[in-house]
C-alpha cells in the first residue's frame, strides 16, 4: 500500500487543543511539513508564545522554548546567537506580537535576526476569551469593545507586514491566507520559502497567516472562513511585501 499522506515527523503525536474551525492546526502542519521537507528538524528550535498556541512546545517535535508574552523574538534572538548552527522560528498570535511584543518584533526584524517569525492574525485574543486585539477590525465587537472598535478612540487595526516593510533589514515579509484549500497550498509555498531562507541563514523572514476564531467571533465554525474572507482580507491584503531573493538579492 502506498502512503500518500501522513502526520509530519516534526509534529508530536498528541491531539491539538484548538477549537473546531480554528486554523492553528493547519498553520502548525505547514511549518512541520516544511521542517520535514527541508530536513531541518534535528537542527531547529521553536519558540511558543502566550496565547491559544501557548502549548506549541508540546506540538512541534523539535527543541522548543516557551516565552513570556510578546517576548518570543527576544528569546529567539538569544537562542540563535547562542546556537548559530541551528535554525530558529517563533510562532505568535496578534496580541502577543502586535501589542505587548511590539518592541521585540520590530527590533528583531530591524537587526535582521536570522530566524522565521510566524504570525497568526485572527483579529482577536483567543485564550483569554475574546478581547480586542491590535488587529481587531473597525466596529468589530469583542468582549472589551462591546460597542464595536471605535477607531477614533482606540485607533485602527495594526498591519504588521506593512509596518515591518518600512525596515530595510528583513529578507522576506509575506501575508498569506489559510481560508481555502487553494490558499493553504499557496501558503505552504511561502512557509517553505521562509524556512529555506532560514536554513540558509540568509536573514529575517516573516509570514503572517490570516486565520479564524469562530469561538470568540461568535460565528459558526463552517462560516468563519467566509466571514474572514469578507471582513479581514479587504483590510489585511494578501501578498508579498519583501523578497530579497527575488531582487536577485545577496543578503
Amino acid at each position, binding site marked *: 500500500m502506498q502512503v500518500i499522506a501522513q502526520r509530519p515527523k516534526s509534529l*508530536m503525536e498528541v491531539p491539538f487543543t484548538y477549537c473546531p474551525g480554528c486554523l492553528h492546526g493547519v498553520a502548525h502542519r505547514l511549518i512541520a511539513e516544511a521542517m520535514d521537507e527541508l530536513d531541518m528538524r534535528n537542527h531547529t528550535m521553536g519558540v511558543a508564545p502566550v496565547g491559544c498556541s501557548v502549548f506549541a512546545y508540546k506540538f512541534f517535535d523539535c*527543541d522548543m*522554548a516557551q516565552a*513570556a508574552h510578546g517576548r518570543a523574538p527576544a528569546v529567539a534572538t*538569544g537562542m540563535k*546567537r*547562542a546556537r548559530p548552527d*541551528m535554525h530558529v522560528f517563533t510562532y505568535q498570535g496578534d496580541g502577543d506580537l502586535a501589542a505587548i511584543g511590539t518592541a521585540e518584533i*520590530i*527590533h528583531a526584524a530591524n537587526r535582521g535576526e536570522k530566524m522565521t517569525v510566524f504570525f497568526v492574525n485572527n483579529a482577536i485574543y483567543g485564550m483569554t476569551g475574546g478581547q480586542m486585539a491590535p488587529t481587531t477590525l473597525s466596529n468589530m465587537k469583542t468582549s472589551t469593545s462591546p460597542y464595536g472598535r471605535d477607531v477614533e478612540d482606540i485607533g485602527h487595526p495594526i498591519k504588521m507586514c506593512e509596518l515591518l516593510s518600512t525596515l530595510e533589514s528583513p529578507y522576506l515579509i509575506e501575508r498569506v491566507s489559510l481560508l481555502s484549500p487553494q490558499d493553504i497550498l499557496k501558503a505552504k509555498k511561502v512557509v517553505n520559502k521562509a524556512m529555506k531562507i532560514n536554513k540558509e541563514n540568509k536573514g529575517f523572514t516573516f509570514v503572517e497567516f490570516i486565520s479564524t476564531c469562530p469561538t470568540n467571533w461568535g460565528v459558526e465554525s463552517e462560516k468563519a472562513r467566509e466571514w474572514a474572507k469578507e471582513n479581514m482580507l479587504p483590510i489585511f491584503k494578501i501578498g508579498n511585501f519583501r523578497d530579497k531573493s527575488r531582487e536577485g538579492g545577496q543578503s
Partner: protein
Amino acid sequence: MGEKVLMKGNEAVAEAAIRAGCRLYFAYPITPQSELIEYMSRMMPKVNGIFIQAESEVSAINMIYGAAGCGKRAMTSSSSPGISLKQEGISYIAGANLPAVIVNVQRGGPGLGDIQPSQGDYFQATKGGGHGDYRSIVLAPNSVQEFADMAAMAFELADKYRNSVIILSDGLLGQMMEPVEFAEAKTEKEVEELGKQHYDWCMHPNVDGENRHHHEINSLEIDPNVLEKHVLKLEEKYKKIEANEVKYEEYNVNEDNEVLCVAFGTASRIVRSAIDQLKEEGRNVGLIRPITVWPYPYKAIEEALHDKVKKVCVFELNLGQMVEDVRLAVNGKVPVEFMGKVGGLVFTPDEVKAKIEEV
C-alpha cells in the same frame, strides 16, 4: 593569576565574566553601569562572543532566557530601574530552571531616583523580585577585586543549581577604581565544554545518534497538581542552596565584642573603618559581612552573639531592609539598631562610630 591592574568595578566584572567563559552578553545602557556594557561591546568581538545592545531591559533578559536555554553562559547587567524591568524575565528563568547571571549596579530610588550608590534593591534581589515563589542567589561584593571574583563564582553557582545569580553591587563599586588581579581566562575549548555540561536538558542539535526526545524550556504547568510538584522541587533546590552556599566574612569578631555590626557591600567598608577607629580607643566591636545575602548567614550572626554583646547595629544604604533578616537571626536576644542613608548618599565613619557608641 596575573599582575594587578587598576580598573573600575564595572569593567573588572565584565573582564572577569569573559574570562569565566561568558560569550553572550545582552544589555541596555543605564548609569551608573554604562562602563560595563561599553566594555562588553569592545571585548566580546575579540573573543568571538556575542554582544547585543537590546531595545530594552525586558528584551535583554529574554535574550538571556533564550541563550541560557541553549546551556550557554550568558550575562546581563543594569542599574536599579532597569533591574525592575528584568523581573518578568528573572521569574521565567526561575520557572524554567535556567542558569543566568545578572549584575545590578544599584542607584538611588524609588522611580528614576538618582545615579548615586544605594542598597535599596535588597528586598527585590533577596526576596524574589518578580512574581511567584522563587529565589535568586545574591552575591554582594564590597571591593573591585571581589566584584570581579564574583563573576566566576556566579557562573559556577548558576550552572551548578540551574538558577539565576544576581551580583548586587552599587554605583560606588561600579565607578570606583581599585587594583584587581584576574583569574586565568578559560580556553576556547573549555568554554565549549561548559555548554555541553547541560546537554541532558538544554536545546542543542539532535545529532550524533542521540535519538533523544525534544527538549522543552518552559515554565508553564497548567495542571495545578503538576505545578505544585514543580514548585516544591524548586523549593528543594533552594533549601540545598541555603544549606551549602552561605558565605560571609567576620571582621574583628571575638568573645569580647561589646557591639556586633552587620553590613554588606559598600556600607561594610565604612563600618570597618569605624571599627578600626574604635579599636584604637580601646573599644571591641565586631562585624559580620554577608557575602551571600541570599542565602543569608542567619546562623553566623546567631553564633557571633557572644555574652558581652549588648546590641547589634545594622548599617545599610537604604531605609532598613536587611535589618529584617538580622532581627530574624538575633531573635530578640539583644536590641537590634539600624542606621540608614538614602538618596544616594553614603554615611561617614564618624556617623557610624556615633551610632555604635550610642547608649
